């Protein structure tokens, strides 16, 4: 018998905010234990939540990027469960009126485009971290992550293979990073997902027993877990190796196996109820329009435009559209200098290699694109030599306030148009090395490169190479 797999995903994405969802504590990753806590996010009695506007902005942005309907009145609810990582014994989340509903994303599959429907996107707070390995009989609790804002993107069960799941996750990753909703870093846990999976005979409309694999945080582990679970379900159906139950499972990537965690609570067990401490959030037209106007062009639309309108090669367009920060830098530079190909060259060969050498991701780029455009102008019109231009760029990475022209002037990087200076340097260098000059006169043309290099060094790179070459030839031959 042939089987089909039915998969739905719940993807948690940590939002790019400076502060937490209901208090002003820092949401930044990597502080010492409980350094980002206050009475509100520690669940001290009497503390009241105040909603961070940016969280709602980003929730709406995600909804719009994923073609969702935005609920103009959206509310928070309490989801009850007792565990020490949640100091209030409930998580504040959205159940009755989530910020966005009924969307879709398109993914590429071997049989063409496929729409994956989004059931809803809701905003919620993250839980804290529990540390079990400091002492044998004690759990240590760190509330830094408690109340850090998340969105959870819930898909319909429209996915039917590990490949489709990966394509869907990569698409979410790209869209959310482009819209600056999240940095989506799997390795830091700012993107993670729960996989709901069931198996049924092909053509059947009845769903099989559903299991949920919790807290997956790498694409390769997700693919392996899906393959394993699919095989386990089919084995149970065909050979009766075990009785499948609806449950939550944990994936052990080292062992390559999933393990039962506990029987799944039904929604009723969480006893969702409206949070009386947070009034409804009403999104008026002005707010809605503001977010709608701020949405970026989709990456593939940008790519197409770069190729057809700006004349970039497919390779260059792919490189630049791999990151929103590179796109912004490119577009700002282009708006200043109008030289698309040169902007692409500078970004791909110089900017990217500086980022690599600083071990920074492309998204971490903060270079002022307009200043880069000005620098490209200086190099293209011959005011600054290319090698010195790179030095200016490096300085601009360390100090965003640098004006390229001013910096080039202050550091003596301006190409001299003073031919008498060039001629005097040529004379000095040639006279100090009569042997090489004689060699060149005798036909060893290549030796001229040595003299050229010494002259350029003497001129500190501030000379048009053509001008220098001509001056050298004139002196040697004259």
């Amino acid at each position, binding site marked *: 018998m042939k089987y089909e797999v039915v998969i739905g995903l719940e993807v948690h994405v940590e939002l790019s905010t*400076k*502060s937490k969802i209901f208090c002003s504590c820092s949401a930044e990753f990597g502080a010492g*234990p409980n350094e980002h*806590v206050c009475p509100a996010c520690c669940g001290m009695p009497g503390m009241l939540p105040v909603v961070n506007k940016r969280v709602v902005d980003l929730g709406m942005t995600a909804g719009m990027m994923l073609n969702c309907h935005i609920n103009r009145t959206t509310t928070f609810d309490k989801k009850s469960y007792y565990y020490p990582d949640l100091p209030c014994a409930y998580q504040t989340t959205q159940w009755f009126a989530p910020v966005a509903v009924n969307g879709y994303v398109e993914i590429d599959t071997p049989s063409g485009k496929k729409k994956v429907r989004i059931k809803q996107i809701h905003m919620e707070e993250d839980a804290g971290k529990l540390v079990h390995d400091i002492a044998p009989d004690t759990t240590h609790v760190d*509330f830094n992550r408690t109340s850090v804002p998340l969105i959870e993107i819930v898909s319909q069960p429209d996915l039917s293979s590990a490949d489709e799941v990966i394509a869907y996750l990569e698409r979410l990753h790209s869209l959310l990073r482009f819209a600056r909703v999240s940095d989506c870093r799997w390795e830091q846990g700012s993107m993670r997902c729960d996989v709901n999976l069931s198996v049924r005979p092909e053509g059947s409309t009845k769903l099989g027993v559903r299991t949920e694999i919790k807290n997956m945080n790498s694409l390769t582990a997700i693919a392996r877990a899906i393959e394993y679970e699919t095989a386990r379900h089919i084995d149970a159906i065909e050979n009766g190796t075990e009785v499948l139950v609806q449950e939550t499972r944990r994936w052990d990537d080292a062992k390559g196996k999933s393990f039962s965690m506990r029987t799944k609570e039904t929604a009723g067990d969480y006893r969702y109820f409206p949070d009386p401490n947070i009034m*409804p959030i*009403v999104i008026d037209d002005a707010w809605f329009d503001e977010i709608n106007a701020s949405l970026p062009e989709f990456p593939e639309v940008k790519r197409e435009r770069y190729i057809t309108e700006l004349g970039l090669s497919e390779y260059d367009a792919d490189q630049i559209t791999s990151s929103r920060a590179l796109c912004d830098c490119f577009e700002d530079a282009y708006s200043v200098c109008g030289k698309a190909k040169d902007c692409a060259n500078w970004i791909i060969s110089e900017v990217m290699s500086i980022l690599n050498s600083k071990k920074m991701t492309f998204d971490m780029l903060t270079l002022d694109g307009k200043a880069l455009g000005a620098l490209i102008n200086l190099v293209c019109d011959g005011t600054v030599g290319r090698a010195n231009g790179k030095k200016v760029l490096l300085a601009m990475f360390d100090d965003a306030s640098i004006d390229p022209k001013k910096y080039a002037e202050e550091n003596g990087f301006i190409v001299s148009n003073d031919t008498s200076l060039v001629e005097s340097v040529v004379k000095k260098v040639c006279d100090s090395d009569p042997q090489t000059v004689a060699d060149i006169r005798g036909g060893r043309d290549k030796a001229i490169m040595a003299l050229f290099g010494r002259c350029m060094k003497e001129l500190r790179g501030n000379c048009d190479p053509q001008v220098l070459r001509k001056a050298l030839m004139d002196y040697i031959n004259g």
Partner: protein
Amino acid sequence: MDYKELRLLEMLNQLSLSDAQKSEMLEFFEKRESDLAILNELDTESVERMVHVMPISTVVREDIASQPFDRDELQRGAPNAELGYWCVPRVVD
């Protein structure tokens, strides 16, 4: 609400009720359920969900981080804290 459902709620809320409290609770929930049954007779098909009794919306704050509270100050009242952590009885085996 039957005895089994009450047991589940008791467990989920980490409560331990005496027999007298249990029958009191059951009585309480039965009364509420019969009240709700009356409300359920109404046709609410075309009625919009009421989000709040008053027509008000929340205030929001700007996304600015600050750290006005000191960790040690916050942990001063904790029954057990060390190394910057709050300590609780072990929750995994």
